[in-house]
């Protein structure tokens, strides 16, 4: 009799555990399917396709490492694309983070209208990337745009902005600085979280404004700064829409063919970033194998860059006890 009870209990427990496992599996099932079909499979397929020649019509043909060799030695465009993307990571991302931090720092100092300023600085972030880019190509229009008109009142001849190989990337940076709202909001929250008493005791110890920034503010907000840099770098690696729209609308003079993809990188390849080249190779020229090889390199670089940033910053990023 007792033995039977034990067996019953064990069976019941097993049944409960089984039911629980089924519940977890059921709840997770959308993601399991999604992860397999839209992430796992394409990742493996990318690796395979990167060793083939494939144009979507005939079957993929195995070519070994030819795609990678072409990338390294022969592709006339790729080094320019890599250089441009690196430029974004080295100049544009830090500039945006510093600017967002500065704006947040100014908003914190406001005695009145904090809510108003926060809304105003956030608003441009809401403008869809296509809309914001179209707006900036007009505002920075060399001949009749408001910015150059404004500069001409002071006798300054404005640059050609999106029309000039030197100024096209800085124009995109201006566009990026306009849309720092998200970073600004998290910096603002972080700055408001810094304990006031730290500032007061630093002040009593005779620390000036710069010293307080260096020894109180920066350590306290460093995790958020790191987060903003990582997100910024990842976004820089996939920078696409703004460059595509700007080059296709500005480069769309009568001289160019109707297909906007032929204007990618206008002017003179100065806005040809890595993802644009990948798009052009894969979906305009249908060099699917080569585009896959580029995708794999992008994946490896994205992973490595994130890892390097996080590793190297352990030294200066300060996590408060109990906070992760």
């Amino acid at each position, binding site marked *: 009799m007792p033995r039977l009870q034990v067996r019953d209990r064990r069976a019941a427990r097993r049944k409960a555990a089984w039911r629980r496992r089924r519940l977890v599996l059921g*709840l997770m099932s959308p*993601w399991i399917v999604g992860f397999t079909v*839209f992430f796992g499979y394409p990742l493996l397929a990318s690796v395979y*396709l990167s060793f083939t020649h494939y144009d979507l019509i005939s079957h993929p043909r195995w070519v070994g490492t030819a795609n990678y060799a072409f990338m390294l030695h022969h592709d006339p465009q790729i080094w320019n694309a890599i250089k441009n993307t690196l430029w974004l990571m080295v100049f544009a991302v830090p500039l945006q983070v510093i600017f967002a931090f500065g704006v947040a720092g*100014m908003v914190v100092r406001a*005695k009145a209208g904090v809510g108003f300023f926060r809304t105003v600085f956030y608003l441009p972030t809401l403008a869809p990337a296509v809309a914001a880019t179209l707006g900036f190509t007009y505002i920075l229009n060399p001949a*009749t745009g408001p910015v150059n008109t404004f500069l001409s009142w002071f006798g300054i001849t404005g640059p050609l902005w999106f029309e000039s190989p030197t100024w096209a990337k800085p124009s995109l940076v201006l566009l990026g600085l306009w849309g720092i709202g998200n970073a600004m909001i998290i910096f603002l929250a972080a700055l408001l979280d810094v304990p006031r008493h730290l500032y007061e005791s630093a002040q009593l110890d005779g620390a000036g404004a710069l010293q307080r920034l260096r020894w109180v503010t920066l350590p306290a907000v460093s995790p958020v700064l790191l987060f903003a840099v990582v997100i910024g770098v*990842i976004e820089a690696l996939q920078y696409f*829409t703004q460059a595509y729209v700007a080059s296709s609308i500005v480069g769309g003079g009568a001289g160019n063919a109707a297909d906007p993809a032929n204007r990618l990188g206008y002017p003179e390849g100065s806005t040809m970033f890595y993802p644009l080249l990948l798009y052009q190779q894969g979906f305009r020229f249908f060099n699917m194998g080569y585009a896959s090889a580029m995708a794999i390199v992008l994946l490896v670089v994205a992973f490595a860059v994130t890892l390097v940033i996080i590793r190297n910053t352990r030294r200066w990023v300060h996590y408060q006890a109990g906070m992760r």
Partner: protein
Amino acid sequence: MSTASAPVPVAAAPAQATAFVRRRPPRAVRRKRALIAIADHSILIALAIMFLAPFAFMLLTALMTSDQTLSAKLWPHPFHWSNVTEIFDKAPLWRYTLNTMIYAVLSTIGVLVSSIPVAYALSRLRWRGRDAAFLLVLATMMLPAQVTAVPLYVMWSKLHLVGSLAPLIIPNWFGDAFSIFLLRQFFLTIPEEYSDAARVDGCGELRILLTVVLRLARPAIAAVGLFAFLYAWNDFFGPLLYTGENAAHWTLSLGLSQFRTQYQVEWNLTMMATILFMAPVIALFFAAQKAFVEGVTLTGVKG
């Protein structure tokens, strides 16, 4: 925070320093503080003007005649209100709006329906492999879209769905990493006692999810729905890839840049269309500001 103001000179008189009483600071200090406050606000106002100026210029240009956009004048004279209707005559904007709505609404529903249960399993249930699964979710969030674009394009083209909105909508019905992440973060903040009380009352996990957690997580769900909608509304790469060749399925983001003559862009019409494209987003923001701020501070990024 008056970080830059001078230290209050209490140390000058040690006798007073011991009996620390907050007194009205001397006149010179007060004046310096006032000047700093004025400087701060001047900089802020200048910055605010710079942030708002692009909107103003876009709006003004949208109301110009074509001739005026080619001049250096900044103020429309006369105001050319008929641009509002002209853009609908010149391009099938209603068609694009309908497509954008189909994409955005179906995606939003899909993201909510598929991400909520996953986030629940990743936050409120304990099981082996949970942390590993969560790490995988985070990894997919960090992955550039271009990495998986080629095989997915091949897959959709084999299913003969390239040229339609289906490749954009369907993936959203299988869990969206960012939404799962945001919902999980919020679910973790709901005290376990609520679920335990429901369990004592004999509720199963599904009932707890549907009655207790969903009700308490309304702000997070609103934020996720909002971000999913905006992502689809703003998306450019997806529609370009899958509907670029088939103008009947273009979304607004693709259709905006077609106001041009053979030689130049028709800036007034382009700006009018751009403003009409932005307006719902900004209206949505002011209507649901709380959900926005909640979502941004919870995760640090917008979807």
